[in-house]
């Protein structure tokens, strides 16, 4: 076995064949080379970048998602449930978009009466739409923590208001809204 093959085997190939082990036992230069490679490997592992703690990064991501205003990104903080319901329609986060549109007078205008919440202004969707609009308004100087708390509150609202989201999605579907 030649030097290069012996080193490659010993360094990365796992269990060494007998001839490789024999070669290494009798070859000082190979052992030194192997040692040097492992030293670099260790140094490189130590050189792995350290980022701020993940909680902070998660909050940063949440803020970015909120500020992006892109419906499919917004679903990341609402949980995938809303996205799956929306995906069934072929439109990302249709429920959320519908809630947004409710406030802005967007493309869900032909909504049937079932879409309009029976409990009036306390409707979760209306609340979510109002909150979303506020969060997305760049003039509101929210801190990341505020944004996160709001996002979680909104997500909780969606969770507890599953039936209403079904109504929203159904409406979007029934209204042939193409998002």
């Amino acid at each position, binding site marked *: 076995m030649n030097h290069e093959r012996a080193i490659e085997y010993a360094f990365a190939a796992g269990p060494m064949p007998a001839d490789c082990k024999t070669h290494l036992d009798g070859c000082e230069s190979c052992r030194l080379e192997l040692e040097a490679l492992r030293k670099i490997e260790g*140094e490189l592992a130590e050189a792995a*970048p350290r980022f701020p703690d993940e909680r902070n990064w998660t909050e940063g991501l949440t803020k970015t998602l909120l500020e992006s205003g892109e419906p499919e990104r917004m679903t990341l903080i609402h949980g995938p449930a809303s996205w799956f319901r929306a995906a069934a329609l072929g439109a990302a986060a249709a429920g959320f978009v519908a809630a947004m549109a409710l406030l802005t007078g967007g493309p869900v205008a032909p909504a049937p009466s079932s879409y309009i919440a029976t409990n009036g202004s306390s409707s979760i969707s209306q609340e979510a739409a109002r909150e979303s609009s506020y969060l997305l308004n760049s003039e509101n100087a929210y801190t990341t923590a505020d944004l996160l708390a709001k996002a979680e509150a909104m997500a909780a609202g969606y969770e507890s208001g599953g039936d209403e989201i079904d109504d929203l999605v159904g409406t979007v579907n029934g209204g042939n809204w193409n998002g």
Partner: protein
Amino acid sequence: MSYKVEPFMTEVESQWLKRLRKGEEGATRELVEAYASSLRRYLVSMLKNPQDAEELSQDVLLHFLKGLASFRGECSIKTYLFRIAHNLALNHLSSATARYETLPGELSPVAAGGESPHSAVQSGERVEALRKALTGLPPQQRAVVTLKTWLDFTFKEIASVLSLKEGTVKAHYFFGIRSLKKLMEVIDES
């Protein structure tokens, strides 16, 4: 909760996937917290630019969530995520809009452009020199070395992420580390 995973879906991951699909509260957040940092670390190495890495790591998570309904669970979530990350990174590298500047105020986990490895060492920053040297490897070697040394992937997991044979991954790793060693020797001598 630990998210140690194998190349194939474990029971823990299966349960986690169910929670994600049910939209269980906190499941998405756990996904982000479990993998965002690792994805970012990998993408920083692949893209050389912290800002691009951060943006792309968000895209990886979004791609994963978008594809969750069709995800068959034939590999682990970890493997799936990093496969998405790798493909997006390669696309990014091949795009004409790839940027390589380091933004002020960033952590500068991997510097790119500007200061050479030599000057980094001269200023006593061997770690930075190693990072620079890593970013100089060919993408495939860089991917293998990064996944192995920075993220503790097994060769089997790397093979699954990169769709390569395990033996090929080992060869990439060996030649990658050897290239880094030679480069660092040159730097040390200078």
